[in-house]
Every structure is written in structure tokens, then in C-alpha cells.
């Protein structure tokens, strides 16, 4: 694998120096927040850290944001026009950089953002083994169940999905390795850089990077013969239709969706239909208390609780 860029490498020199001075464990750093004229904030172990300069919290300058954006976008903001429309860029390593500023509208739709005033660098972490407790409940009759991972933001859905893909692809003592097709629309699962996944996704995994989910699933089914298809953050009607098509084609599905609870999920019209029809065989509900990735419950298609992670608080 190519050497991946460290998260600190996209920060301007003086901010990098202040952050490194804090001597934080990089794998516990969750977010770096830059807002013009406001103190620099790091979210570390679910707490805020304010790097200091001359005894005071360092205030982010406009030039700091400009420079960070240059580094994040590989000096090529134009290449990220599609992503900027959605308000974020995914950089090497799968880290998502959210941004706010002034929207440039064209024919009632967001064309781009200008005068970027805030950046939120969400650090992506690989946690090999985080699916160890979960995977056994997702296997039935030597096959992977159609599974939906449900949680609010920042609860570890993508991290868990990544490890599930890896374990299913490589195989475990419970399940022989399977061919997995991943539609990585936002480059967060594989963190692809120049077409090469920076995260470990297993030896039998094919990744479609930067491709819309619905089209991506069709492409994979037609050409790569996946036994399992994995997608992140489904939400649109076409995503759901593509999933139904994939299920009818005999593929097993691993997907994630935003939601605080099963009740909230049932209230969404698209998912209400899916749940009622029993398309998914397993629902994994995640939370972030006491830690991100806390398994609040694994449920079967009837809603019966199969597993809940012990709270070690």
C-alpha cells in the first residue's frame, strides 16, 4: 500500500505545531474544527481540547483555512466540485472534511461553496477486530444475513462496516471468504487514493470508488459477481430500489443508515416498507455511550433482540 498521508499533514505549519505539542494519541483524535476567528478545537476522546498559543487558545485565521483547503484538496479544489456541493470533501485515508461558507446557487441548486468559514476534519479510524462480537450474529446457515447498521452520526457505523467487509472477504472460522463488492460513494470505507484502498478491506473485495450507490450496485452485479454488496449511508429511493434489485439477484447486503432507533427508522417511509417486507434479516443498532461503536442491540427481522453489548462504564 502507498504511504498514507497523516491527518496532521493537511494542517498549516503553525497549527500543526500547536496540535503536535498537545501530544495526543492520533488514534483517539476524532475531529479537528477550524472556524475563522474562533479558537481551534480538537475533539479528543469525546472531549474538547483547545491548543494554546502564548497562554491563550489559538484563534484560526482566514489564511489557515485557505491553506488547509489547499492541502485537503491536493491543491485542486475544482476536482472536488461534486463533493463540495454536498458540503464536504473526503481526503486520502477516508477522512471527511466538512465545510460551511456561502452557497453559490444556480437554477435553485447548490453549485458550489465560497468564502469557506469553517472546516471540520472528521478523522477516520480503522479498528480491525471491532466486528468480532457482531459478525457471529450476522451469519446464518453459512451465509451472511442482509444486514442494516443503524446509528446517529459519529457512532462508528462506517468503522464497523469496514471491519465486517474485511472479515467476510478474508473469511473467519465461522464463514469461508466471500467475494465482496463495495460501492464507496464518499471514499470513506476504503479511503482510496489513486484507486488503491488505504484501509484494509480483505483479499476478495472489489471497490467502486466515488460512484453513486444505485449505479454502482448495478455495475458490480453485472460485472464483478459479488456474493456480498456493501454500501454506506443509504437514504434515497434509488438506493433502496437498487438494494431490492441486488437482493433479487442473490447478493447479500450490508448497508448503513442514519437513525437513532428502530422506531425512528420505521417512521421513514422508504425504510418502513423495507422493514415491513422483511428485506433485512439483521438490524445492528449502535450508539456512542460509553464509547463510539457501542452495540445497543442486534435484532432479527421480527425485532427480537439477539445481542446487546455489555456497558463497561
Amino acid at each position: 500500500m502507498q504511504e498514507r498521508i497523516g491527518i496532521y499533514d493537511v494542517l498549516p505549519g503553525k497549527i500543526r505545531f500547536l496540535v503536535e505539542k498537545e501530544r495526543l494519541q492520533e488514534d483517539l483524535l476524532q475531529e479537528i474544527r477550524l472556524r475563522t476567528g474562533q479558537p481551534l478545537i480538537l475533539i479528543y476522546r469525546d472531549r474538547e481540547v483547545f491548543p494554546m498559543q502564548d497562554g491563550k487558545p489559538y484563534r484560526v485565521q482566514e489564511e489557515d483555512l485557505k491553506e488547509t483547503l489547499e492541502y485537503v484538496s491536493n491543491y485542486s479544489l475544482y476536482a472536488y466540485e461534486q463533493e463540495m456541493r454536498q458540503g464536504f470533501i473526503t481526503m486520502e485515508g477516508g477522512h471527511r472534511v466538512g465545510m460551511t461558507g456561502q452557497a453559490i446557487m444556480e437554477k435553485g441548486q447548490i453549485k458550489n461553496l465560497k468564502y469557506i468559514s469553517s472546516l471540520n476534519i472528521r478523522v477516520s479510524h480503522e479498528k480491525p477486530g471491532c466486528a468480532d462480537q457482531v459478525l457471529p450474529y450476522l451469519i446464518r446457515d453459512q451465509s451472511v444475513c442482509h444486514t442494516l447498521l443503524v446509528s446517529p452520526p459519529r457512532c462508528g457505523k462506517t468503522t464497523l462496516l469496514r471491519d465486517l467487509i474485511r472479515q467476510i472477504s478474508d473469511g473467519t472460522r465461522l464463514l469461508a471468504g466471500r467475494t465482496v463488492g463495495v460501492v464507496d460513494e464518499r471514499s470513506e470505507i476504503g479511503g482510496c487514493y489513486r484507486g488503491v484502498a488505504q484501509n484494509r478491506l480483505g483479499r476478495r473485495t472489489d471497490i467502486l470508488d466515488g460512484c453513486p450507490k444505485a449505479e454502482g450496485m448495478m455495475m458490480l452485479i453485472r460485472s464483478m459477481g459479488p456474493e456480498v454488496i456493501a454500501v454506506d449511508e443509504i437514504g434515497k429511493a434509488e438506493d433502496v430500489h437498487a438494494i431490492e434489485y441486488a437482493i433479487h439477484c442473490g447478493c447479500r447486503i450490508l448497508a448503513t443508515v442514519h437513525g437513532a432507533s428502530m422506531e425512528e427508522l420505521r417512521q421513514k417511509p422508504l425504510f418502513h416498507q423495507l422493514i415491513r417486507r422483511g428485506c433485512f434479516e439483521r438490524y445492528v443498532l449502535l450508539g456512542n455511550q460509553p464509547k463510539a461503536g457501542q452495540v445497543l442491540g442486534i435484532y432479527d427481522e421480527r425485532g427480537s433482540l439477539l445481542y446487546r453489548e455489555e456497558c463497561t462504564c
Partner: protein
Amino acid sequence: MLKLAGSILIIGTGILAGMSAADRVRQQYEEMRELQTLLYALRSEILYARACLGEAFLKIGRDAGEPYRGWMMEMSRKMERRQDRMLSVIWKTGVRDALKNSKIQKRDLLRLEELGTQLGDADLEAQIRSLDRYLEELKHSMEEIREGMKIKIRLCQCLGVMGGIFVTILLI
């Protein structure tokens, strides 16, 4: 006999000097043409492939001749390292260091430096327009050189020969 040999050598030197000067004129044109080709390739990489600049420089630089190869590869390396430098600084330093001995006219080099301040932005169309504007100006410079090239080459060669004959006569 010695005088004859000396005369031939002096005239020969004059001829070579003239050919060398003529060659420089030709090389200047060739270098500008190569720069034009590279910038068209860059335009294509930006407009159609939406490639990041670092990747584009690496790809284009691999197939380019010197000094452009060194220029583009070095810029690509610096951009990969992200060493506290904005693109405009990397580009400007690159043009000044790698192309300082090139035969491109100074005004075209200054405009090339200026071009770097307009690349990398979110506005794709503005960048393409900046590239097109530079390419247009480069084309005019090349046309000026081409028009005068034949005459200059002949002039250099003639001056070389005449200079050699003149020195020979002086010495004889």
C-alpha cells in the same frame, strides 16, 4: 600553407559560431512549442479528467523532455509533501529554478509565473480561461519568433562566415 590552414580554421570557427547561434534560435522555438504541448495536456487533465494538479504534473512530466520534466516532477513531489507551501509559491519557485536556463523569452516566463496564481481554484472555468489566455499569448510569441526565424538563422550563418573571413583578413 600555415596561413591557409589558419584561415580555414578561423572561417570554420565563424561558421560554427553562426550555426550555434542559429541553433539557439531554433531551440527557443522548440522549447516554446514543447511548453505549449505540455500546457495543452494540463488543460485536458483539468477539464476532462478533473485530475488533481499533482497527479497531472506527474503524468505530464514523465513524458516531457528537460527542463520541463524536472520542473513538473519537482512540483509534483512538493505538492505530495505539502510542506507549508501554497500552490502559487510552489509554481513560482519551480518556474524560477527549473526554467531559469531555458530559452523561453523573459516576458513569457513572467506570464507563466503569473499563471500559477490562478490554478487550483474551485472555479474550473476561470482556470481554463487563464490557461487559454496564456496559450494564446504563447502562440503569438511563437508566431513572432517563427516569422523572424528563417531570417535570423540565415543572418547568423552569414555573420558567422563573414566574421570568420573578416578576422582572417585582419590577421593576414
